């Protein structure tokens, strides 16, 4: 890729960002055409950690393929697993016990909070503020501790099975969740004080990386990045699953369309997730945590599609089944890949220094893009 460095005939400078660069949060390689300091074009080169999860899944059974998705978007691995488990349940019409449903939602929301908090720290660090990163990790560690206690793992939880969850929650679970809620209520104002109202942060993000509502839809942008452009796309509200329809929470929307609005949407989403945790933590129904299922699962012949709202947007799982024990074809519509489509459009005409802020606000996770 070295030969891509140089100047074009028009005198534009071509530079490479990545594949190893702190601002790309992983092995993303961007070839940027610059006119002075202004970006003319961004061309992403992907595939540095492409593992072809889709091909791999074709030889895994319906119990096994769920866990490859933990390695896609590793910051919302529980929600990815959730989408796959839902698909198997939809195909086999398995009724999930209410206790398992509530545990799943609690875990989903804890994952979302952890992901957004980490994003908050990383975003601030992209813009040169080091301290928020340590604040973010302090709270995220507490959430990871909860995961470790109940699921046995901190990052790739693999806690979902078709028909429920793998094990019952740890006796300490409820107390720990209440502790983290208390902790977050104390610390979130500190977050705002550090970054949200910060003049330098505002100057670097307001009016930067404009993405209109029409463009967001056309580029297939979902999640908080699209909701900051006023697109209503929260799958939890539009196509409720697992009892989200019974909960009282807001779909966070903003009409600023810039980097700062995307920041604000995520910060408010943390609070909405906390409110979901509060509604459920004392109301976990008694009963089974897993439905009884057959040892060998065979999906009927046909096509199945489920979607869930991960921390980054809409994850779609599309399975074509031939009636066997393994999927014939599987496709993951990952939110990161679609969000990346809009990067070139959003950065054109912006300064190279702002590119980092815009990319940070899209919250790209590279394994999710490459799959």
């Amino acid at each position, binding site marked *: 890729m070295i030969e891509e460095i140089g100047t074009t005939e028009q005198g534009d400078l071509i530079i490479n960002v990545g594949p190893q660069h702190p601002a790309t949060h992983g092995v993303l390689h961007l070839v940027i055409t610059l006119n002075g300091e202004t970006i003319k074009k961004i061309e992403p080169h*992907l595939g540095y950690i492409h593992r072809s999860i889709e091909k791999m899944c074709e*030889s895994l059974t319906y119990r096994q393929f769920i866990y490859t998705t933990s390695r896609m978007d590793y910051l919302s691995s529980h929600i990815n697993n959730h989408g796959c488990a839902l698909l198997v349940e939809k195909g086999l019409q398995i009724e999930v016990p209410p206790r398992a449903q509530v545990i799943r939602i609690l875990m989903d929301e804890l994952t979302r909070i952890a992901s957004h908090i980490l994003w908050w720290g990383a975003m601030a660090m992209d813009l040169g503020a080091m301290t928020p990163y340590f604040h973010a990790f302090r709270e995220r560690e507490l959430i990871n501790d909860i995961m470790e206690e109940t699921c046995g793992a901190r990052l790739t939880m693999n806690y979902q099975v078709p028909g429920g969850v793998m094990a019952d929650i740890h006796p300490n679970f409820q107390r720990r969740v209440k502790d983290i809620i208390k902790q977050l209520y104390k610390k979130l104002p500190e977050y705002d004080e550090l970054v949200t109202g910060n003049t330098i942060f505002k100057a670097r993000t307001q009016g930067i990386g404009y993405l209109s509502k029409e463009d967001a839809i056309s580029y297939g942008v979902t999640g908080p990045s699209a909701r900051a452009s006023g697109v209503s796309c929260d799958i939890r509200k539009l196509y409720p699953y697992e009892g989200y329809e019974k909960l009282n929470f807001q779909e966070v929307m903003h009409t600023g369309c810039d980097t700062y609005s995307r920041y604000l949407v995520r910060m408010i989403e943390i609070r909405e997730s906390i409110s979901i945790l509060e509604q459920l933590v004392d109301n976990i129904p008694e009963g089974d945590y897993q439905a009884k299922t057959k040892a060998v699962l065979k999906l009927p012949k046909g096509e199945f599609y489920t979607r869930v709202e991960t921390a980054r947007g809409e994850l*779609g799982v599309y399975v074509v089944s031939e009636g066997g024990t393994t999927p014939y074809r599987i496709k993951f*519509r990952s939110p990161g890949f*679609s969000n990346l489509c809009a990067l070139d459009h959003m950065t054109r005409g912006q300064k190279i220094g702002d590119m980092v802020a815009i990319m940070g606000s899209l919250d790209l996770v590279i394994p999710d893009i490459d799959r």
Partner: protein
Amino acid sequence: MTNEELITELTTIQPNLVPEAGGEWPNFFVEAADWPKLAQALRFKDDLFFDYLFCLTCVDWKTHLAMVYHLSSTRHRHNIVIKSKLNREKPEIQTVCDIWRTAEFHEREVYELFGVNFLNHPDLRKLILPDDWVGYPLRKDYEDPINMIKL
């Protein structure tokens, strides 16, 4: 629009559409040659208004390839699935990235993994695989004796 209304509406626009039973959303097979005209109608007709292409992929059926487009409308909240059978030896279909811009990257992905040639695509190059990669990995007859682990 309900699924039944969608089926009637679409068969009026494009009489040779073949509906497919089953599935949660209406499924249609369209001839590859008719696809650009149908795509225009789906996107710009006010009562259809499918402005959101949420999944674009391909399936290898060994005898032929099938393109699968999942479309949704953010205004009317209805969904539809359009499929198109392609010749396995020379798969060609018109691009839709001028209608739904997210298709640009998704089509490049399908191009390298299945070998589908998207006509009039502005920048049809490999996206994920190295430029010198031989073969189409997601096709069913793809063999790679070194890197592939068979279970």
